[in-house]
């Protein structure tokens, strides 16, 4: 925490220094809107930081000042000399307090209240502040700067110094390589070789450290918001889950620092405004816990950072109305805006749709600052929002100096690199995968289908060395999920490379994003995979841009969806699996513990008799028997196996009922999925479902049959198939009419598109299962 405080102190001092000139100018000309905005942002930032560090007094001051200036900005207040004085006094006081924090002393309460009262424009009653205004003890403490620096443990270096250091090391490595060649030509000389090897090791270490000095995984930055989100959520009485998906993206330290504040604003906005309160969310049929997602991905020559929430989104109509009311644009202009442009209005100074101003944000400050800061570093900001569904702020920041996990490939005489994030797999070419040409385009077959294939030598117009069947196929997964093969002569290497920008004339070809330096010091171009796909007509312009974020989304969902199972060889020779959640443990029992009562087997375990399933009718001949102990709240039972027990992940999308058994795919092997307890009932046991809640599902829909039904059953419902019975829950598609005369206590709508707000999208499985659980809880009551 100390280092954060030190950061805060440094940052505040820097801001105060920068503010000095603005203040003087503002004092001369208080009507200057731009200056006012700058000063306003200062207070806003200080306030935000204070909330984070629990510095209530500073926060109160900054809040009061911000409040007063907000009044001016919105035209509710006019500027007079007294307000200017009051603002300046607060700035001075903030400076004193920052010094005090740095030196570890306390500024006595003094006249904060007086300052705040002055800001609020009320008459100051001299009597009330007649008490000693500045306690004498305050003075030694506030002469802080003399003691500053003691608590600093970090060194700030100009980045160009670090740059020069780093390129110096790179140069040393090149010289080292040259030296190595020369030593090799000298013949064997043990002494020189030993020294040379030591030099190499030291150099490699130094280089590794140096790289670390400049680069930081973006996940560090993302994680630093977790605490803030948690505290903020607690303050606001909301439940917020923050999700971080940063892949292996690393960013230049300097870039990270430049992004820190803008991102903080965005995240804070998402939690404060984006997400609804618990009650509002429930009323909207959303899970009570709001989601804020931070993701980063390298796409082409930019790092794309997305901050998204599943909150209420931005009310674009209201935003436009406000913009018109504030004279930012005319009604005619407004009518011509695209939805994207309308959303971008949120970045105009002073515009916000938040109906109430909270102490965290909501005065329309933030987004204009954010956009300015992002544009200053050459980035772009975009806002994507759907009313009721949430909001995503997408930042594209340039990849000026960043390390990209890459694949180096060879074509003919040349070497190229491409970002590994695009590569889904590498396939050896040959008859096995080669398919017919379709419309003159070469295609290849993989297990999951037919994919177009581009030969990199043809794309680049150079001569490759390998015949088509000998080529190596790099399977490239595009952002929209489509896959194509890029045929190259050979894969050379795979590793982290530093990508540097390359001349605009070269990027203008649309084939390259930058240049990297290979380990031998020679330059290699990094391919613009998306550009190549686009130029070859495999990807339309629109696709490349619009769906950039959805892929990360899908990947995430899939990962979440895989169900961990325990798979085992059953005693009838088949392979079966059971949800890992249901398995208490795997035990080994002796023959003596197993017994029969009639045809039902049981086993004695932990001094308890529990039913044993999965046995043939006779006692096993093995001396020891591997059993799975399965339990949930309701029952405990054992299942006999023939060994080969292992944990696997099962994709529920492969589950099918068609054969009358529930089968799923593990790899390419079908397994029977056993259901126990709340995962449904196994045939041998009495069905608990009859007196539990009942549910009707859409009929004649494969998705409902194969997918929804298991989920509904897992939630404890018995599925009723006729249309007349009264049920506890009816699940239906929002485009279907309610089922005739039959009644249902509750209805859950599944949406196929955007037809209605209360419907849950088919793809939103997490939402679906959460809604089901909520329904079950209600039914039980």
């Amino acid at each position, binding site marked *: 925490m100390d280092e954060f405080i030190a950061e805060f102190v440094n940052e505040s001092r820097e801001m105060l220094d920068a503010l000095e000139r603005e203040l003087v100018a503002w004092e001369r000309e208080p009507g200057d809107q731009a200056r006012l905005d700058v000063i306003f942002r200062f207070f806003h930032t200080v306030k935000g930081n204070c909330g984070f560090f629990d510095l209530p007094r500073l926060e109160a001051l900054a809040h009061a000042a911000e409040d007063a200036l907000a009044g001016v900005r919105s035209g509710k207040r006019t500027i007079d000399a007294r307000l200017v004085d009051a603002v300046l006094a607060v700035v001075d006081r903030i400076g004193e307090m920052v010094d005090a924090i740095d030196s570890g002393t306390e500024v006595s309460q003094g006249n904060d209240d007086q300052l705040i009262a002055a800001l609020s424009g009320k008459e100051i009653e001299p009597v009330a502040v007649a008490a000693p205004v500045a306690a004498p003890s305050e003075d030694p403490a506030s002469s802080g700067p003399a003691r500053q620096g003691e608590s600093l443990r970090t060194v700030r270096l100009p980045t160009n110094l670090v740059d020069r250091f780093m*390129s110096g090391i*790179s140069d040393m490595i090149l010289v080292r390589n040259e030296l190595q060649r020369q030593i090799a030509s000298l013949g064997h000389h043990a002494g020189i070789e030993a020294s040379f090897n030591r030099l190499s090791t030291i150099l490699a270490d130094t280089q590794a450290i140096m790289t670390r000095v400049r680069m930081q995984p973006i996940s560090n930055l993302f994680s630093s918001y977790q605490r803030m989100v948690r505290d903020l959520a607690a303050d606001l009485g909301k439940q917020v889950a923050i999700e971080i998906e940063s892949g292996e993206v690393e960013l230049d330290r300097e870039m990270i620092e430049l992004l820190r504040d803008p991102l903080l604003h965005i995240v804070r906005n998402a939690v404060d405004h984006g997400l609804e309160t618990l009650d509002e969310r429930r009323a909207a049929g959303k899970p009570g816990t709001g989601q804020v997602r931070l993701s980063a991905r390298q796409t082409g020559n930019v790092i794309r950072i997305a901050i998204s929430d599943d909150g209420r989104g931005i009310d674009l109509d209201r935003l436009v109305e406000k913009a018109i009311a504030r004279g930012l644009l005319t009604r005619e202009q407004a009518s011509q805006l695209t939805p994207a442009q309308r959303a971008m209005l949120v970045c105009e100074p002073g515009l916000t749709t938040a109906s109430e101003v909270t102490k965290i944000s909501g005065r329309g400050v933030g987004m204009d600052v954010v956009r300015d800061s992002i544009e200053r570093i050459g980035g772009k900001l975009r806002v994507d929002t759907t009313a009721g569904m949430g909001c995503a702020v997408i930042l594209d920041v340039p990849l000026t100096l960043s390390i990209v996990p890459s694949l180096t490939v060879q074509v003919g005489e040349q070497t190229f690199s491409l970002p590994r994030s695009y590569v889904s797999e590498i396939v050896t070419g040959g008859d096995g995968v080669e398919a017919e040409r379709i419309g003159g385009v070469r295609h290849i077959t993989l297990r999951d289908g037919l994919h177009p294939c581009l030969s990199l030598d043809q794309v680049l*117009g150079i001569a490759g060395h390998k015949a088509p069947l000998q080529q190596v196929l790099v399977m490239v997964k595009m952002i929209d999920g489509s896959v194509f093969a890029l045929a190259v002569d050979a894969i050379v290497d795979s590793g982290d490379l530093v990508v540097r920008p390359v001349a605009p*004339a*070269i990027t203008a070809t649309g084939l390259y994003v930058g240049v990297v330096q290979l380990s031998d010091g020679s330059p290699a171009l990094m391919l613009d995979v998306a550009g190549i796909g686009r130029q070859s007509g495999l990807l339309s312009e629109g696709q490349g841009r619009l769906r950039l974020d959805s892929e990360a989304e899908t990947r995430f969902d899939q990962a979440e969806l895989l169900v961990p199972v325990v798979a085992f060889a059953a005693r009838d020779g088949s392979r079966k699996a059971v949800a890992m959640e249901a398995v208490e443990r795997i035990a080994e029992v002796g023959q003596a513990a197993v017994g029969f009562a009639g045809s039902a087997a049981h086993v004695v375990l932990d001094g308890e008799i529990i039913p044993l399933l999965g046995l043939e009718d006779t006692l096993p001949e093995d001396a020891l028997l591997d059993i799975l102990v399965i339990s949930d709240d309701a029952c405990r039972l054992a299942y006999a196996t023939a060994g080969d027990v292992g944990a696997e992940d099962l994709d529920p999308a492969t589950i099918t009922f068609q054969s009358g058994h529930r089968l799923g795919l593990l790899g390419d092997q079908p397994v029977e999925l056993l259901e126990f307890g709340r995962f449904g009932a196994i045939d041998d046991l009495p069905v608990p479902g009859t007196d539990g809640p009942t549910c009707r599902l859409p009929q004649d829909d494969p998705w409902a049959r194969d997918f929804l039904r298991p989920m509904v059953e897992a939630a404890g419902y018995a599925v009723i198939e006729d249309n007349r019975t009264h049920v506890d829950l009816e699940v239906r598609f929002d485009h279907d009419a309610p089922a005739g005369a039959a009644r249902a206590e509750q209805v859950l709508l599944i949406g196929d598109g955007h037809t209605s707000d209360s419907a849950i999208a088919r793809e939103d499985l997490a939402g679906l299962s959460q809604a089901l659980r909520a329904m079950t809880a209600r039914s039980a009551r």
Partner: protein
Amino acid sequence: MTQSVLVARVAGERIAIPAQLVQSVIRLGEVVSVPRAPGHIAGLTTLRSQSLTVIDSALALELEPQGDGHELALVTTIDGCGYAIAIDAVENVVDAMGEPEALSLKLAPGWKRCAVGKLETSVGVMLLIDLERLIAGPEQQKAA
């Protein structure tokens, strides 16, 4: 104010380049070609750890290709990108005698595009070349 210029030789002609723009003169090492790039971009090379885009000055001036004759290059940085401008030879660095004069001659398109004006120096009269326009090359010019 007179400026000092670097006198280089391209396709048999002498050209003048503002000396303060030239960081160094290097002997070109291995040049990695850039497929599908505009013709005057000869490729990429490395100067220590920096990647430079190699510009073939003859092609950039829309002259006949000079074969593989370029051995020397002038290093310059424009808009944060490093370039190596391949030339035939470097003659001297001299002070210009006066300001560049407007061109009265009708020049070939490449020269016309890249030349700022005629410049008198202690070693004779030659064209002062604008490096940015040289680097932009013919294709870029057409597109603009």
